[in-house]
């Protein structure tokens, strides 16, 4: 029988082995390392299906007092693994750019590190999914963030990348400080770091709720940075644009998903405080408006996707503000599929021409398959039925209407219409602008396979969402139960 912690240990061992090979086998083709990483992660992914979830309790001691193996965490371990596999596939496509832009003599060794780092990030994401103790949340968050420091500034000979790296480093460190400070306040008020025990302590009347709430707001600031919620979104466009494209994809999916899982977990003790919901509604509205309006005039696709990731954080926050964990998880899955698909196309096209929208002109002629993949990704991001993106929005709006959050619904509908404009702008460029160059774009079999799988998943889950609905069913019940006790 496989237990949950063995999954992370497996991933860590895989990362270390790849690093060892990278360091000592100088002669080998470094691309093999990426393939080994993909295979290894796939093996762990398969193993994760055999882990039996067990709900956490506030009586657990030792290791299990800060680590949970409930169904939510298992689900997100799989989520992190799939994301990392897809990012590694993108990195293989990106390798030529890396080779040309890194200043060192030994290109091979840089490449090996480039493939190894995401595996450690993946381990961090997986730990984060299981963390139910503030200390452990902090440690795993740092494991993720520190590996991202390196990844974001990987092509450091490029000034834009360097700028992105510095911005990410400074602001991320600042948000970490907020997190620690917030945890301190919560610990001071409740005397606990375990989330389950904090819930129990907060329920009693002699706890200083004000202090705990203040701490929670500080924690929210730190998490707002991770999920790119307004007003902590300033870093997003520059960092997303400057970072190597696969890293941007990883940042916008992996980092955001982890932020939301942690958010769902840490908010649970604080759900009974009505101030919390008002605050979340406000943040959600601001994020929606900012992300969508700022995306409207963008002419650079990478920047557009950066603003769109802020906009989607807004939709996710609607789900959080309405305490519907199930809707948030479904939306995250949808977001993973469609964002990674669009970045996968972007990685390949931007090597040929560039990452402005006008560089996609006439893509339908140059590569019908890539244009179709991008069409599906954009249409799903915009939220057209029979794609998973629509169902995601459907569940989010469903939750908002059930809670009678009128403001969220109205703002949501208006911003969806904005979304149609800027996502279809890309479609317009691909299909009815004529191309400047008419060269065909080559596509490796692996990428073609990965993209086809993503397209099929987007459409398939858009028609038959049952597999994911089933996977988060237990969470749905529990979150619903918690929210009913609130009301």
């Amino acid at each position: 029988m496989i237990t949950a912690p063995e999954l992370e240990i497996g991933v860590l061992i895989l990362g270390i082995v790849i690093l060892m090979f990278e360091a000592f086998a100088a002669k080998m083709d470094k691309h093999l390392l990426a393939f080994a990483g993909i295979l290894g992660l796939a093996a762990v992914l398969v193993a994760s299906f055999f882990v039996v979830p067990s709900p956490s309790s506030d009586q657990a001691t030792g290791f299990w007092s800060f680590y949970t193996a409930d169904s939510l965490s298992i689900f997100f371990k799989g989520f992190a693994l799939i994301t990392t596999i897809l990012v590694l596939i993108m990195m293989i496509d990106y390798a030529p750019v890396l080779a040309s832009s890194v200043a060192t003599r030994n290109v091979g060794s840089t490449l090996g590190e480039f493939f190894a780092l995401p595996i450690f990030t993946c381990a961090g994401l997986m730990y984060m999914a299981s963390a139910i103790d503030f200390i452990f949340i902090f440690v795993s968050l740092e494991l993720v963030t520190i590996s991202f420091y390196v990844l974001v500034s990987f092509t450091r000979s490029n000034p834009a990348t360097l700028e992105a790296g510095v911005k990410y480093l400074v602001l991320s460190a600042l948000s970490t400080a907020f997190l620690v400070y917030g945890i301190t306040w919560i610990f001071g008020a409740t005397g606990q770091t375990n989330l389950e025990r904090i819930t129990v302590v907060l329920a009693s009347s002699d706890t200083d709720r004000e202090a705990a709430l203040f701490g929670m707001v500080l924690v929210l600031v730190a998490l707002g940075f991770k999920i790119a919620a307004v007003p902590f979104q300033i870093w997003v466009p520059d960092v997303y644009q400057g970072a190597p494209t696969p890293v941007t994809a990883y940042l916008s999916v992996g980092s955001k998903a982890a932020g939301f899982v942690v958010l769902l977990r840490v908010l649970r003790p604080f759900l009974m405080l009505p101030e919390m919901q008002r605050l979340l509604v406000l943040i959600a509205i601001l994020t929606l408006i900012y992300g969508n309006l700022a995306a409207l005039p963008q002419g650079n696709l990478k920047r557009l996707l950066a603003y769109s990731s802020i906009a989607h954080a807004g939709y996710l926050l609607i789900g959080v503000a309405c305490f519907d964990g199930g809707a948030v998880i479904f939306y995250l899955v949808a977001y993973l599929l469609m964002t990674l698909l669009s970045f996968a196309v972007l990685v390949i096209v931007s090597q040929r021409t560039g990452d402005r929208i006008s560089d996609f002109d006439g893509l339908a002629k140059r590569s019908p398959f890539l244009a179709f993949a991008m069409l599906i990704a954009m249409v799903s991001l915009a939220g057209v039925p029979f794609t998973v993106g629509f169902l995601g929005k459907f569940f989010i709006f469903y939750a908002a209407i059930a809670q009678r959050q009128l403001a969220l619904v109205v703002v949501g509908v208006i911003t969806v219409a904005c979304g149609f404009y800027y996502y279809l702008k890309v479609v317009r460029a691909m299909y009815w602008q004529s191309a400047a160059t008419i060269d065909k774009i080559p596509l490796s079999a692996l990428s073609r396979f990965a993209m086809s799988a993503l397209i099929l998943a987007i459409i398939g889950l858009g028609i038959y969402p049952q597999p994911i609905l089933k996977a988060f069913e237990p969470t749905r019940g529990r979150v619903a139960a918690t929210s009913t006790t609130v009301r």
Partner: protein
Amino acid sequence: MLLLVIFCPIVAAIVIMAGAPARKTALVASVLTLAITLLLLASFQGPQRDFQHLTSFSLSPEWHLSFTTGVDGLSMVMVLLAAIVTMAAVWFTGEIDRHENAFYACLLLISGGAIGAFASIDLFFFYAFHELALIPTFLLIGIWGSGNRTAAAWKITIYLAIGSFILLIGLILLYQSVPVESRSFDIRALKAAAALGQVSADAQRHIYLLLLIGFGILISLFPFHTWAPEAYASAPAPAAMLHAGVLKKFGLYGLLRLAIPLLPDGARHWTNLLVVLLLGNIIYVGLVTIAQKRLDWMLGYSSVMHMGYVFLGIASANILGVTGATVLMFAHGLSIALLFAIAGELRRRTGTLVLDDLGGLGKVMPFAGLAFGLGAFAAIGLPGFANFAAEVMIFFGAFKNGWEMERFHLFQIATVFGLWGVVISAVYMLRAYRKAFMGTLAARWKDLVDLRPGLRVPVTLLVGAALCYGFFPQSFVRIIAPAFRPYLSAGR
């Protein structure tokens, strides 16, 4: 068999994208769709009021979400309309200079989406199938359109996206308004819940308003109509035929399908608002139509205007008026498709649709002139065409309704104005016909050729169907009326 009708165009679209010969496949698919639809119609059992030809696949038991299709009299008529217009539109498609396969695939996707929406009994798929047409419309206008196509494409897409998301909110609210244990996306289950009075009058009011705005945007209800003329003027003719003829009817169909059985109190509450708005459609848009200088814009506005009559029939809320509304949806779909087809052929030949530049074309294109004339007569509502039968039913139904309520009522006023609307439509239609086809022939149009014989087939089909149901509207009334009988007064 019904599934075959829905998926025949969609599968054909996929096959065409995969590289099959575009025109042949599309024609075969549309003819096949029409043939199966006629078979369905023949095997349709009239007086029965339940759905027939049912198929159902459960998708999510917890949400009571299932892919269920079936037809009753109302949807049967709409599916028939969609099948006829699809075939005519595909047949009318001429030479496409670029991306020929994509053009036909988009057309067939619109058609498949419309048929799917008409045949779905599940609320979710009812909505989703309609949205399937959104992106193909965007591409059709944007890539192959004329005039200010980019602006028109954005406008229609964003307008319709807002409309459909407002509609989605209304539908979710409807789903949540029934008690948890009877929540379902199945329209039949919702009807059962509504029959038990489980949808409170208060909730009905909110939901009906949302549905009215959402559907209203899709139907181009005044004042949400501004997207329609521009889009139809820019769209390639087959796209305009399908959209104005079939897809726009989805909103009306939705009101008939959902509002009448599920939200009677809401409908009653907002009747006055609806009547005022529909008068905006008939009178205001009618006058705007007279002022148009271009044939395509005129047709676009006229299609907006005629929606007012259908709304009048729906608002009258008795069987006579509602049945008339359904027949008018069918009849208007045929006539506007015919008019857009001829206008498209004119544009292809002359390169302009400014009415003052045309003239005397009837001499060189007698068949096109005849077809346009018949279409115009049908649109005005001359006896003999289905439009006439439908409008008579609507007017009688609406007038009667007002009579039953009070001595002198908004409905009588609306009906009187509506009758003046017929005069307005006679003015602009006949004027357009005179300017385009009568008078002296300009020298530069001397060499124009008439429609080739192949294109006369769809024209005959459209005119024939309009005449057929103009002389025998009873065959429709017999299958439509039972669908509404449990919910509405007879209105006799």
